[in-house]
């Protein structure tokens, strides 16, 4: 008798959990739509800017003394790590944090300075006693260009003052709803190495007012846009990840409920059978 009651209790508790997960799935799905439009809007700007930067890199000679392009002896590296603020989104937070951790550990001879965007990433590196210099939360829920600008200015300043010698950003790249790949991108210094598929005759480009001021203007913009783009990619991945994991959780819950219901019915039937047997034996005894 008590076990039947327990099963009933479990069914109702799984049922209410299922309802929550179903709701989270729907919320994530509708937010994902919005976030994806933003991603579609930022990507052309990002691609164009990357092209401009590629052009700059190719046209840049060693005689141009551009602060942002000079590589120096690396003693300290800043990492911007983008994760989510909340869990229940599958492996999203762990994947990006793990990727970042293994990268940081491969550079363990250098001092690390972590800028953790997202509470989950912050917790992850806090537990591992990493040097976190800055923490941003709330950015994955409502990504704004201003947030990216603040971060961009901060790392540019840190780089210019010599506080850090390299800046990397670790984020999750959105490929499809099911495929999210953690990416590590070097932000500073902008590499001036000629890319593999270099044109045989590079385009002669004029600059207004001159190359140096153009680059000094374009690089901070590139930083901000890259960080903003990465933030949006991350946000989209988080939502997609939450949507799919909540969807499978809902399905698992349905399965559990089915199993439990079957068990409950079996027990109930068993009890009825037992009662009938008792009555019949009782009646037989009287005869």
């Amino acid at each position, binding site marked *: 008798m008590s076990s039947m009651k327990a099963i009933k209790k479990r069914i109702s508790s799984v049922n209410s959990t299922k309802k929550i997960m179903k709701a989270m799935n729907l919320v994530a799905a509708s937010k994902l739509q919005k976030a994806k439009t933003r991603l579609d*809007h930022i990507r052309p700007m990002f691609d164009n800017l990357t092209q401009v930067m590629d052009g700059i890199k190719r046209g840049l000679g060693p005689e141009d003394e551009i602060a942002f392009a000079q590589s120096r002896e690396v003693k300290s590296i800043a990492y911007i790590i983008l994760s989510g603020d909340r869990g229940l989104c599958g492996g999203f937070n762990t994947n990006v944090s793990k990727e970042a951790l293994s990268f940081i550990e491969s550079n363990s001879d250098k001092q690390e300075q972590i800028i953790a965007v997202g509470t989950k990433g912050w917790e992850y590196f806090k537990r591992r006693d990493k040097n976190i210099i800055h923490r941003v939360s709330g950015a994955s829920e409502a990504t704004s260009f201003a947030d990216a600008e603040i971060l961009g200015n901060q790392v540019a300043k840190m780089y210019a003052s010599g506080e850090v010698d390299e800046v990397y950003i670790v984020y999750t790249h959105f490929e499809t709803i099911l495929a999210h790949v953690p990416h590590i991108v070097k932000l500073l210094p902008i590499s001036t190495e000629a890319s593999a598929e270099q044109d045989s005759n590079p385009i002669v480009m004029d600059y207004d007012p001159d190359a140096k001021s153009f680059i000094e203007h374009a690089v901070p913009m590139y930083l901000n846009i890259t960080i903003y783009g990465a933030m949006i990619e991350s946000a989209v991945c988080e939502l997609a990840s939450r949507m799919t994991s909540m969807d499978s959780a809902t399905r698992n819950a349905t399965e559990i409920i089915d199993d439990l219901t079957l068990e409950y019915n079996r027990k109930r039937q068993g009890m009825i059978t037992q009662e009938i047997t008792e009555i019949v034996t009782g009646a037989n005894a009287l005869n």
Partner: protein
Amino acid sequence: MAANKMRLRVATPESVKLDEDVGMVIVRCITGDMGILPNHAPISAILDFGVLRILDNDGEEDIERRMAVFGGIAQIKDNVVTILANDAQWPEDIDIAFVQSERERMERRAKEDLDALEIQRDQILMRRTLVQIEVSSYPLLSKIEHDEANINQ
């Protein structure tokens, strides 16, 4: 693409504002206005706050559109003008009443005693509102000019 056309792309972090073939572009750079015709030599320029003028001809009459652009960079290459702006607005996206009130607020604040950072911020906002006012008053202005021309005739 017609021979006397070039591609103009205006992108901001929020969206792609424009992507089409146009006849002529006048853009405000930090060194002054730059007029761009098709087949311009490759050039990269820093943009100032200012009005982007897009001139076109639909075969009968000249059409001019204007857009407020708030800083960024422009690059011309292979007959494509790419404008990457920090922010850009079409006149119809500007809430002129709000902009006017902002401008008045800035003018009042200019008389107050503020620290350097605030003054700098106010100046940027002020320049922004001035560009917004200029852009959104354009269709009106051209209409007045047009009417005046009719009266003079």
